[in-house]
């Protein structure tokens, strides 16, 4: 990021514009998820585009942005409540809840990618592969061992980080295009390996056992009083916990001195080295941490879907993860969340474009790179105190 936009955020910006925007967005999301008819969905999506473009044109986002910048803590809390509101509204709807859980776990994975790509500038085109490492770990562990299922999630993350560490040497020694080739080669290798390896189910894939914490089986529906609840609600709660943990971690990391080091590393490796930063150390930290998050998300996602196959972890899927990051604005965690919601939900709801999603997102990224290289929500300039003038 060569030129950073200076945002003027007076500390007295009111809270209500960002909350109002959040409420509107949540209401819209519920409507979009609830509607089944294709023409209505197209209408809703078109309406959203019109509203966003109009708000952008009339400067409505300025107030929201200032309010958000001044009260990020309160906004984060409200966003969590909003997520719970969406889940509560669809408490007995398996399909929608699965979609919501998918969004949440994809956000966790993209946060991991963001640490690598957005902060320290390590390109990783094998995101889906590390996601797959997590998922295959949970498949193997639930099928063949008695490891407590809650532990399977962190173990999946550790496995992804370990397999990622095999790539550390080439990643550390190469730069730019050359580093990209390493991860691309790995993504292709991983999928081919899964397909020809009979032990891991070959092209047919594997069954994954469900989560079970102290006798509380996640794959059973439950009910409070007379209200029936979908079993996906269990996974929603756990995924939310994972997301909140990952989000806090990534956000703290960004604002800490480690984040500063990573930024320096990304912006100019040579200069950072001249100032005495240990480049290799910070690259290892961010690559490993990123893969850990991606692997944890993948492990839980394997359990949620209860079935995995090599075709879910192709190079094209890795590119979708990268697309999310670019659409959202590299380095901006809130942008990542918005972009993930769009990228995961739209093709699921709009069945006609499901088949074309790779094509669509690749074209979208080309357009973004040509016309708005910083993404939908560009990463704002670093601010150390909420509301402080930069």
């Amino acid at each position: 990021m060569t030129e950073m936009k200076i945002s003027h955020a007076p500390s007295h910006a009111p809270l209500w514009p960002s909350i109002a925007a959040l409420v509107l967005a949540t209401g819209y999301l519920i409507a979009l998820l609830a509607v089944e008819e294709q023409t209505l969905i197209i209408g809703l999506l078109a309406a959203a585009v019109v509203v966003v473009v109009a708000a952008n044109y009339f400067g409505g986002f300025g107030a929201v942005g200032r309010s958000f910048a001044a009260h990020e803590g309160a906004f984060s809390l409200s966003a969590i409540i909003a997520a719970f509101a969406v889940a509560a509204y669809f408490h007995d709807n398996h399909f929608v809840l699965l979609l919501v859980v998918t969004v949440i776990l994809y956000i966790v994975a993209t946060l991991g990618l963001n640490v690598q790509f957005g902060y320290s500038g390590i390109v990783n085109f094998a995101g889906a592969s590390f996601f797959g490492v997590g998922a295959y770990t949970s498949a193997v562990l639930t099928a063949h061992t008695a490891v407590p299922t809650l532990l399977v999630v962190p173990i999946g993350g550790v496995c992804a980080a370990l397999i990622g560490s095999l790539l550390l040497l080439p990643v550390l020694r190469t730069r730019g295009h050359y580093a990209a080739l390493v991860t691309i080669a790995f993504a292709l290798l991983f999928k081919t390996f899964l397909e020809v390896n009979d032990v891991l189910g070959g092209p047919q894939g594997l069954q994954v056992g469900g989560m079970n914490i102290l006798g509380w089986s996640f794959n059973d529906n439950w009910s409070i009083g007379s209200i029936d609840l979908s079993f996906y609600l269990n996974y929603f709660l756990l995924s939310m916990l994972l997301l909140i943990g990952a989000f806090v971690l990534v956000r703290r990391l960004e604002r800490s001195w480690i984040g500063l080091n990573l930024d320096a590393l990304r912006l100019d490796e040579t200069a950072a080295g001249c100032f005495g930063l240990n480049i290799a150390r910070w690259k290892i930290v961010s690559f490993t941490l990123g893969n850990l998050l991606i692997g944890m998300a993948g492990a839980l996602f394997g359990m949620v879907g209860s079935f995995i196959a090599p075709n879910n972890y192709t190079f094209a899927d890795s590119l979708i993860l990268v697309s999310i990051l670019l659409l959202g604005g590299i380095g901006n965690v809130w942008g990542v969340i918005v972009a993930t919601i769009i990228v995961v939900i739209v093709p699921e709801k709009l069945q006609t474009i499901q088949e074309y999603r790779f094509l669509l997102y690749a074209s979208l990224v080309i357009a973004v790179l040509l016309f708005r290289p910083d993404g939908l929500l560009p990463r704002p300039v670093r601010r150390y105190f909420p509301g402080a003038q930069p």
Partner: protein
Amino acid sequence: MDVGLIAQYIMNGLMLGTMYALVAVGFTLFFGVLDVIKFSHGDVLTVGAFVALATFGGLKAIGLDSQPILLVIMLVVAVFATALLGMVIARTMVLPLRSAPPLNTLLITLMLGTVLREMVRLFYPEGANPKPFPALLPSGSINIGQFNLRYDNLIMLAAGLGVIVGLQLLLNRTRLGLAIRAVAQDDETARTMGINFTVVVLITFAIGSGLAAFAGIMNGLYYNEINFGIGLLLGVIGFAAAILGGLGSIYGAILGGFLFAALQTIGAVALPFASAYKDVFAFTVVIIFMAWRPTGLIREKISERV
């Protein structure tokens, strides 16, 4: 091991090597003139192969049966189509991003590769399935012991080597080649000398992409089958080959192509379970090689301004 069998392996290795060299030369040409890696190169190859297949279908439909004429027309159409595609890509995506961070060029060409690949998959009739590629070369063979020298392989090898030699001559003996080399060396000085930079870049992209179509058709004739994913595989291998030899050097790319094919052939002979794990082996070699020589055997000259 029998001498005939060894000869067979060498022949296969040479075929693969020629194909890889053709792809690698494209990468090197683009890197030479613009200092960019065009990751969509492999998928341009796919487009070339599919254009050739579509041309074959069209010519068959109007009742053309002579195999040599069919092949020549397919080659010409595919090479021109991809050359045009290469120029369009350079004009609309690579040149406009010259001043942007190099990462953006990488991303945009990577995404463009996906677009091309998906277009072939979605819009070519039944593009998601592997397509049989017509055998248009004479099918006979000479048998020497266990060694089975097929005429079609011999012709392809000769044609491929001919194209590489032709490219050499073009680059070293013509005014256009001189201009390309001048731009590759220093584009500002080249411009001062009256070379039209944009035109030279576009022609270079056209040449590189045309070579990819040639390699794509060779690939189809060799395996008698093409699918929408061949370009991704060949692109990564071609890029690795180009790096193996050192990016920016034509000889390096050719050498790299044959080296990579040699590695693969040795891998296929030496590893007991090689046939299934052939690609896994190839990619592992790529990754290990990157760790060993991050910028290739002939190192790229890096000087950084701080």
